[in-house]
């Protein structure tokens, strides 16, 4: 008991110190202009070939690439930030398969894996540029600011295509990416707002703080929750860990008796969150997950009220297509090429659930028409 008496004031002191910290992050990731821009992009009708979202674009202009034109087949090089999570694993498989599709135009495809390290990626890029073995360079940057100088240097020697995360320069011929974090936040929060019963409680589960794509997902969602007076009872960091996610959700169920909706900034632990409801004997919540098969299967099996936003892995196909077009002197969308960012809803769930694919496969891979599907992606 003496223990508890000591702990109270001591921890309260620590709480005061800690309370100041979160504000340091907030500003950059909650930009009303970007929020509005994402809302506009979501309203747009994609242009380009139907059924091939990886070749479509939302707005944007065509860039003249005639100065890069040269006879094929081409040597393409790719500096990859890493393959350290299931999303990047699926994307990387997409990209290799896309290279196979274009094998008549591609003589060689060299890739360097930076293993999540900026310095390794900088030297990878330099090595590619100096080797003279690359007609075009694709870069998926590990971090934005650190990779900018290396990309700028590469731009002077050969056409560069950047995708996924960006760089702070306009020098690449094009930067391919989907609508992004704000779009994700808008899509998911609007779904929850539309389904939530009056006075319903929402728990937000986030992976970790400080990562731009995740912060913007949350800032956009939180803006919509606030505008609609939604009762967000908590926003917790799960570290992407199943066990921790389940424990947090269980804590909230215990604390509030009932949680009506789960919002997630990434769906990897969605099934663990749902298990907490199962084990507590509670009805399933409204939930926004992601396009991973484990979640989609659970959704279908249990008839959940759910939606799956996507950060589509098919974006790994687009840079390869762009590289070949650029080297042929055909125009591409640039300097920013925005890809559509579809969601999976109850209406089209069936076309994405696939028992033959592994649980961590991303359904929005746009890979069904690619050579080697489904075995290449671990399917049966």
């Amino acid at each position, binding site marked *: 008991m003496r223990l508890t008496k000591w*702990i109270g004031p001591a921890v309260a002191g*620590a709480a005061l110190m800690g309370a100041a910290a979160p504000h340091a992050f907030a500003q950059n990731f909650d930009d009303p202009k970007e929020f509005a821009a994402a809302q506009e992009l979501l309203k747009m009708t994609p242009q380009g070939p139907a059924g091939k979202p990886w070749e479509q674009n939302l707005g944007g202009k065509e860039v003249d690439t005639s100065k890069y034109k040269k006879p094929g087949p081409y040597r393409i090089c790719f500096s990859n930030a890493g393959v350290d999570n299931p999303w990047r694993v699926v994307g990387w498989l997409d990209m290799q398969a896309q290279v196979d599709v274009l094998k008549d135009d591609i003589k060689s495809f060299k890739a360097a894996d930076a293993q999540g390290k900026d310095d390794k990626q900088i030297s990878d890029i330099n090595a590619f540029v100096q080797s003279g073995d690359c007609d075009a360079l694709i870069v998926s940057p590990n971090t934005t600011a650190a990779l900018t100088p290396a990309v700028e240097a590469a731009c002077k020697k050969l056409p560069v295509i950047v995708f996924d995360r960006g760089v702070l320069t306009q020098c690449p011929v094009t930067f391919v990416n989907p609508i992004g974090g704000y779009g994700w936040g808008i899509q998911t929060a609007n779904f929850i707002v539309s389904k939530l019963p009056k006075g319903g409680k929402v728990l937000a589960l986030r992976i970790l703080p400080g990562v731009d794509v995740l912060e913007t997902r949350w800032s956009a969602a939180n803006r919509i929750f606030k505008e609609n007076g939604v009762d967000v009872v908590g926003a*917790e960091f799960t570290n992407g860990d199943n*066990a921790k996610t389940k424990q947090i959700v*269980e804590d909230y169920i*215990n604390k509030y008796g009932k949680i009506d909706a789960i919002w997630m900034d990434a769906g990897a632990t969605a099934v663990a969150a749902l298990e907490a409801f199962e084990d507590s004997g509670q009805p399933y919540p409204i939930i926004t997950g992601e396009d991973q098969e*484990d979640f989609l299967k659970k959704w279908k099996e249990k008839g959940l009220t759910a939606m799956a936003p996507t950060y589509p892995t098919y974006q790994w196909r687009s840079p390869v297509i762009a590289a070949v077009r650029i080297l042929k002197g055909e125009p591409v969308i640039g300097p920013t090429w925005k890809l559509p960012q579809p969601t999976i809803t109850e209406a089209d769930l069936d076309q994405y659930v696939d028992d033959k694919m*592994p649980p961590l496969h991303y359904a929005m891979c746009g890979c069904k028409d690619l050579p080697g599907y489904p075995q290449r992606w671990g399917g049966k």
Partner: protein
Amino acid sequence: MTLALKDDVHRPALMRRINFAVVVFLVFYLVIGLLQPAYLEPAGIMNFLRRAAPLAILAAGQVFVLVSGGFDLSVGSLVTLTVIGGSMLTANDPSNTGWAIGVLYGIGLAVGLINGAVVAYLRTPSIIATLGALLAINGVAMTWCGGSPRGYLPENFRMFGRFVFHDVPLVKIFPLAILVFAVVAALAWWGLHGTVFGRRVFAVGDNPRAAELAGVHVDRVRLGVFVISALAAVTAGILLGGFGGVSVDVGVGLELQAIAACVVGGVQLMGGRGTVVGAIAGALIMTALFTLLTLLGWPQPLKDTAQGLMLIIAVALGAWRRRRTG
């Protein structure tokens, strides 16, 4: 004072320390119950115990090492390896669960023997030896799965952490994990307080030189305690994997939580003193603390801070009590 007198106060002091940890736990739990009455219902108590089970099992293993005068920092990474290994070995096929669990205990045995051998025969301080093991085991786990969680644990593997008996008299629900916890606790209590080996663990922790002169095979005792701790870690890993599914950082920080639980439960860090009941009560206190802070709505970083402060306070209190009681 005389040695005889010291021996006389030894038992009551020990009793008092046990009671103290148990009392602190009960007070914590009562506060939890006031904040959320669901915790006072049988189902709430059962759920709480199920959640505390993995940490309590780790503490019950760790207490052997601490009493012998060492540390085992490798248990957290061994938990991770167990969960990752479980998913890799079973490969989504429930018929693999039986032998996979056997292999996991085999890995645990090997890790315990290596830890023990490094400490006993290479004369490496256990804090360094097991810190090295922590890094090495984590590396093995990450290499094995390629850095990201792959596959799933089959339902029959997850049963130990997830299965619940329904319609049990008195308590209504009874999670299988509590049964595992009870068996481990009983085994640990018997091992430390009811066997010759247990008495030797105390002797080695109290004064290894004296123990050696008295004919105790100090090296063998050291091997034994690390093996016990490692096997407890595999058991905790099976429960955690069962409860939460595959995760690459399920074990992160558990080694410190287990040591903290022991210390809060009155186990002396430099060896020679401690009880299994205290260690388990400590684990319950830690779990109750986390639950309490969650009910109060504290964010995770502050919970970590609270855990750290709790540890310091517990060690300081322990030292102060020892000074007072001699």
